[in-house]
């Protein structure tokens, strides 16, 4: 069980994390250890791993309840405009 530097870089990119060169190596070895630990589960018989669900997730009735005031919604926003969250301009690759 090993994990390549390329895989670490890819996972970091998907998580929008910027890693320095030495960090890539550091996390590669950490992730290797984690995967090895999780791999131990393979030693357990599969029948023991089969999930058995007894109860469903609860459902709620389709009845509206009050939402938050827009001031509260935007309370934590670092930047806001026209009662909306302001973020750096989203540019699609076209």
């Amino acid at each position, binding site marked *: 069980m090993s994990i390549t530097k390329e895989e670490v870089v890819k996972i970091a990119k998907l998580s929008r994390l910027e890693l320095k060169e030495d960090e890539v190596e550091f996390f590669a070895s950490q992730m290797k250890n984690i995967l090895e630990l999780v791999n131990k589960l393979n030693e357990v018989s599969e029948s023991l791993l089969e999930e058995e669900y007894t109860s469903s997730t609860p459902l709620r009735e389709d009845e509206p309840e009050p939402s938050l005031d827009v001031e509260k919604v935007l309370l934590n926003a670092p930047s806001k405009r026209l009662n909306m969250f302001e973020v750096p301009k*989203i540019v699609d690759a076209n």
Partner: protein
Amino acid sequence: MEFEAVIGLEVHVHMDTKTKMFCSCKIEYDAPPNTNVCPVCMALPGSLPVINKRAVEYGIRTSLALNCNINLTSIMARKHYFYPDLPKGYQISQYEKPLAEHGFVLLENKKVRIRRLHLEEDAGKNNHYENSSLVDLNRAGTPLMEIVTEPDINSSEEAKEFLEKLRAIVRYAGVSKADMEKGQLRCDVNVSLRPKGSKELGTRVEVKNVNSFKFVQKAIEYEIERQKAILLEGKSVEQETRGFDPQSGKTFVMRTKEEAEDYRYFKDPDLLPLILSEELLKNIKDNMPELPDERIERFMRDYGLSRYEASVLTNFKELGDFFQEATEYTKEYKALSNWLLNDVLGFMNENQIEEIPITPEHLAKLVELIKKDVISTKIAKEVIKDMLISKKDPDIIIEEKGLKQISNEDEIKAVVISVLEKFPQERERLKNGEEKLIGFLVGEVMKLTKGKANPKLVNKLIRECL
């Protein structure tokens, strides 16, 4: 070389619930920004999703209407990606075990298989502003169904036919208004080409978020031509995600293969599996609304309509509902359907009106008035024009304008005699067997009575008075 297009669709349908998928915020399409937002919509720490029961029921209803197998246990999963309109950093969706699988939709000449139907939530909305983007979370969490077909579609026309049928089905099932303009039905299109007769699938290109039936057709047609040109040059098609620009009618690259997402799906630990009881399923099955194909058959069987008439009255649901209600006031079904499809629908198309301007009861009354010889068909044409504009009761229009048919023999006889006196030559010729002159003489009587004389009586009286 001849190519064959292989097309699959992924359709997202907003469900017509009062509240969101995982919280009790209202669904409103024109609410001011961020007024239907709560801690769940914003993914604040400690907030937990709770599934909307009606959304589950609507999903089941749709699955049944699409002839799917329902999974009694299905799993909610997290689909991760980063975008400003997705505060959680993941969308709650279904992956390995969707709500339903293996269904089909019957088109005129083919069967399009449904691979799966799953439940999920919509994201918020980004508004692009001068140098920034503004995020409105009102739409975040709107209940969605994603319906995925097998690649059974082979042309843009078939894609359109499928979408129209699907839209009719969800409307009849009462689960969505499926208004494309409001984004309640959105479509991703997968297109690939292969040499005609080949069984292998070519490289597939996904065109994202095409938002009208016309654009779906255009995007497919454009992709077929684009891919054909590449293949004929001996090159190969890139697997990529493209967008569609309605202005130019072209598709363009959105994401390249190198950036293809890894969504890192896993079961949402906030939600236990969705386990449905047989009882709930049975209850929904027993209370299924009438579906489009069923209505067509019933209208043909019960009201003697042609398949064409029944289809029009089914495709335009409101028109069919109108017809249905009107049948409670008259048994002249065929006439009713004629007036509705020719005069009423014609008027609506001409004036680009969406809503039927008259009531079913009034139209039925008009049909009855003709049947009872109170007015002639010709006068009725005049009355309906008035009705469509003034929305008045036909009885009132006839009364006000004095259009009631004259069926009083003496009254008509007087006019007939005066006409025969005015045209002695024509009278003679008719007497001598020149049958076409009856039409002329009837016409003259009608002129004098402003079209109100009962034509059958006029005919009879002219012959009697010759």
